[in-house]
């Protein structure tokens, strides 16, 4: 009796094994046991895990939700779910049915699973210190209403979301009221809405993720203390798409990211005290759109390369600093060869100001007239904000 609690038994599930269904094995298990599931197809409606057990699949056994059920519900602390292939969860507009759902638990480990055609993928409701690692999530919902979020965390703390691949969902990764968590090395692409959707989630970090080709890019809102390092935001292209959309963000740090081929690389609204450094903005429509509601942001040591517009803004009040960046459109000179241009660079073109004031003038986009206006404004600035300038533009691109 003593040995069982300390080491745990291993229960086997499969054809010709002691248990033929996972639910019966869970019923027989006690805290600390492991359940190993053989390859095969299991249609067990909902699998409820209410004991601290380790559930491991051998060679990806298939758990089929038959388009009706939530496949795995975790209602115990310290549960591990590893190596399953979950398919066809139910779809509901009333409740959030997920492939795997964590209900108010801590230290849950969900790793190495494949989820296909699930409504929500992995859903953590008030989870603490959980690890969601190396899962592959693919949804096939056709509209935003028909598909849920890939990895959805609500009111969590100390989560680790590592190395997952999410595609086809509504939002790839969704964070709301999640604190002190890390999102690391995930790939989120071709999701219906956002690659990452992030609200009221303070003091989180996301590092080395790739967000590609999502409906509207990445959105980070109403948060302070976010760190974003070395992520790639790429090909988020469309009328309302952004590489990253920042709304009401403060005291945050954006460094080493690459913004490639987005309609707007960064769109900032109501942000304050953000340091944006060592990023690359390349081939975007707007490298950066910074609204006049932004305050005390520092944009420094970034590369701005072949963007249609480097910076756009909507007002004449500018309380942000743009010094020490490399701009490929800079036409100044450097007499003393200290690699810093001798005259300031104004990244806001007259035409981008005109468009911001009067969107209808986009009709003249790429016309001879507008390039002429831009050229004359460069020589004699009148309409573009006086303070929005890089006083010390760098002459050569930075090695990032």
């Amino acid at each position, binding site marked *: 009796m003593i040995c069982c609690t300390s080491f745990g038994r291993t229960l086997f599930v499969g054809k010709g094994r002691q248990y033929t269904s996972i639910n019966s094995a869970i019923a027989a298990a006690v805290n600390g046991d492991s359940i190993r599931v053989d390859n095969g197809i299991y249609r067990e409606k909902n699998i409820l895990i209410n004991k601290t057990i380790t559930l491991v699949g051998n060679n990806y056994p298939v758990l089929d939700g038959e388009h009706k059920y939530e496949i795995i519900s975790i209602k115990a602390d310290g549960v591990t779910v590893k190596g399953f292939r979950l398919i066809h969860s139910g779809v509901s507009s009333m409740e959030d049915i997920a492939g795997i759902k964590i209900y108010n638990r801590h230290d849950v480990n969900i790793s190495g699973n494949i989820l296909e055609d699930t409504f929500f993928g992995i859903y953590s409701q008030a989870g603490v210190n959980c690890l969601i690692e190396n899962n592959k999530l693919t949804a096939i919902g056709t509209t935003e209403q028909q598909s849920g979020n890939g990895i959805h965390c609500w009111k969590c703390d100390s989560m680790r979301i590592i190395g997952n691949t999410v595609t086809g969902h509504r939002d790839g990764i969704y964070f709301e009221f999640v604190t002190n968590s890390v999102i690391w090395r995930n790939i989120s692409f071709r999701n219906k809405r956002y690659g990452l959707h992030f609200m009221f989630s303070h003091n989180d970090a996301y590092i080395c993720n790739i967000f590609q080709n999502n409906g509207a890019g990445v959105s980070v809102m109403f948060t302070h203390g976010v760190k974003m390092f070395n992520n790639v935001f790429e090909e988020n*292209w*469309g*009328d309302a*798409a952004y590489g990253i959309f920042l709304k009401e963000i403060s005291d945050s740090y954006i460094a080493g990211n690459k913004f490639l081929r987005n*309609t707007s690389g960064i769109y900032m609204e109501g942000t304050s005290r953000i340091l944006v450094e060592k990023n690359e903005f390349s081939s975007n*429509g*707007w490298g950066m759109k910074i609204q006049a509601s932004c305050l005390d942001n520092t944009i420094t040591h970034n590369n701005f390369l*072949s963007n*249609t517009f480097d910076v756009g803004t909507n007002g004449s009040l500018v309380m942000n600093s743009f010094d020490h960046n490399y701009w490929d459109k800079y036409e100044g000179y450097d007499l003393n060869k200290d690699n810093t241009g001798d005259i300031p660079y104004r990244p806001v073109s007259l035409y981008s100001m*005109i468009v911001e*004031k*009067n*969107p*209808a*003038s*986009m*009709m*003249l*986009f*790429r*016309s*001879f*007239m*507008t*390039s*002429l206006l831009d050229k004359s404004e460069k020589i004699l600035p009148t309409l573009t904000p006086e303070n929005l300038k890089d006083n010390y533009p760098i002459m050569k691109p930075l090695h990032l």
Partner: protein
Amino acid sequence: MKKIIKYVFADILRNKIVLGYTIFLLLISMSVFNLEDNSSKGLLSLLNIILIIVPLVSIIFSTIYIYNSAEFIELLVSQPLKRKHIWGSLFTGLAGSLSLSFLVGAGLPVMIYTPMDIGLVMTGMGLLLTVIFVAIAMFAAVITRDKAKGIGISIFLWLYFSLLFDGLVLFILFQFEDYPLEKFMVVASALNPIDLGRILILLKMDISALMGYTGAVFRDFFGTQSGFIIAIGILLSWIITTFWLSLRKFNRKDL
């Protein structure tokens, strides 16, 4: 009529300026596509060239050609030929030869380096612009007998279509910015073949996403199959009306 077209065609193709124009276009488009790392950027650089150079060369060359063949025209008029046929064959010869040199100079590289549908639209617009500006040139040339004045008028018309018109539109957009201007924009674009051509090409490219709300208005109208046909119709009517106007003038002109 065929004989005159043939003669005008051969005469223009032998002309060194047209040969130079072809080679110039060819050089520019080849170097643009080879310098830029992706073809869509090359296409954008080429777009500006096509929208400025093509109308300019078409209008100036045609005006000068018409003035230089004044004696030839007088000779033809003295023959038992209809004026309609003389003027028509001059137009066909000019438009045909300049279109040919555009096709070789810019159309060919565009077709080689870019996706099919964008390339087709771009080449098509270039050809239409060439023909439209030949028609405008003939109108300018028939208005006045004085060569200097005629060339002045054509240069002014080119300036108007490629620059002044846009300035005017910008002015109106700002004066009436409190009013809904969607319909006005669509109508305004129809009043300038260069604008219309540019918008049609841009709508086919990825970059149209930048045009945001305005782009959506245009896409709503011109993006559909019927809208595209309407746009082509507008451009064709530019050719027909201007040519018809110049023909009317030529018919009554005392040479």
